[in-house]
């Protein structure tokens, strides 16, 4: 699975990236986590709030940093 964290370098975006990596590791998922900082690429996903989380090209979250348990649930639901 291919996970992207969209965000142009704000504190919350970095927090989401870290949290996602941690969740992936703890769940032992076979996934890549990529940070997308280019605003034009971000806009292709039609998000209006950063940070946003994209799983396999689908936006699953925008404008918030969830709790790790909610994030894990989100990841397993989108396997």
């Amino acid at each position, binding site marked *: 699975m291919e996970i992207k964290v969209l965000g*142009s370098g*704000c504190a919350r975006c970095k927090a989401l990236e870290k949290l996602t990596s941690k969740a992936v590791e703890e769940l032992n998922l076979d996934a890549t986590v990529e940070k997308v900082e280019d605003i034009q690429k971000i*806009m292709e996903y039609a*998000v*209006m709030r950063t940070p946003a989380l994209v799983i396999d090209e*689908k936006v699953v979250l925008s*404008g918030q940093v969830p709790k790790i348990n909610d994030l894990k649930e989100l990841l397993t639901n989108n396997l």
Partner: protein
Amino acid sequence: MSRIKNKIVLVLILIPVWILVYKYLQEISEFIVFRIFQLTPEKHLTETLRFFIFEVPKVLMLLVLIIFVVGIIRTYFSPEKTRKALEGKPLFVGNVVASLLGIVTPFCSCSAIPLFLGFVEAGIPLGVTFSFLIAAPMINEVALVLLIGLFGWKVALIYVLTGLSIAIMAGFILEKLKLTRYVADWVYKTHAKQSLEEEQAKTLNQRISAGGEVVKEIVGKIWIYILIGIAVGAGAHGFVPDEYLAGALGSQNWYSVPLAILVGIPLYSNAAGIIPIVSVLIEKGVTLGTALAFMMSVIGLSLPEIIILKKVLKWQLIGVFIGVVAIGIIIVGLIFNYIVFI
């Protein structure tokens, strides 16, 4: 299921407790200063301490309550819904709606760019987008709390109404100036590959938790600024003579308002840090209009936001944007200085 009930019950229990403590805050603070610390009234240090011990819990309590309520209200709004509401609205009506929605839509200046692009892509006029971008940071719940807490609800209302007028008029004028060519060229070339799915409706319980989360996040971030702001304010309250600042910034000096704005733009502070200080400025003789102008330029026109906007706007447009908003603030400042003197 039992946890769901608990949260609503918890809120219902906490509200009367809040009201009770808030009502007797003056008595509690006086008890601490005069009985526990045994300080003599009317001394500088006593006055400073009393101000601090009374203002800090008062402002923090208001902050928790209002941010919580606003946090819940905001769960009913989102930039996506706001964009939908603005699509196809005629000018002026669009400006009014955008400014009003700017108050309640969750907004963080770090998201200003995606929001701007999202609006532009939906065909929302530039001026309407600007109305939103002016109102959103300027009229926020923290500013509201501090204004109510330190000046009373009348000044808070004046701030909201004048802030709204500036956002509406500035957006309207910016649209009339036809500045689309000063938007960075790539902006009109970006296109979303997909549209976002509708968010699921939230339960009341989720909304309450969301409100709680926002309180934790915002209060956790700004309490220190409030403490410092009120400490500076308390120090000045006790030690600086009244009317001290009346000479330079208080009287009918016409230049006091533009000067306050010039000083305010590069100063980057959130409402939390600046408003306690402004409250003391007023106490020491600065007129309301000048103080309002200063506050608005610090909160509404900030360098970091301008730098963020530079990514999507050419400098000519940024210049006009700052100019129009600054003129709006000057007019508000002068009007209030004038009203105070008649």
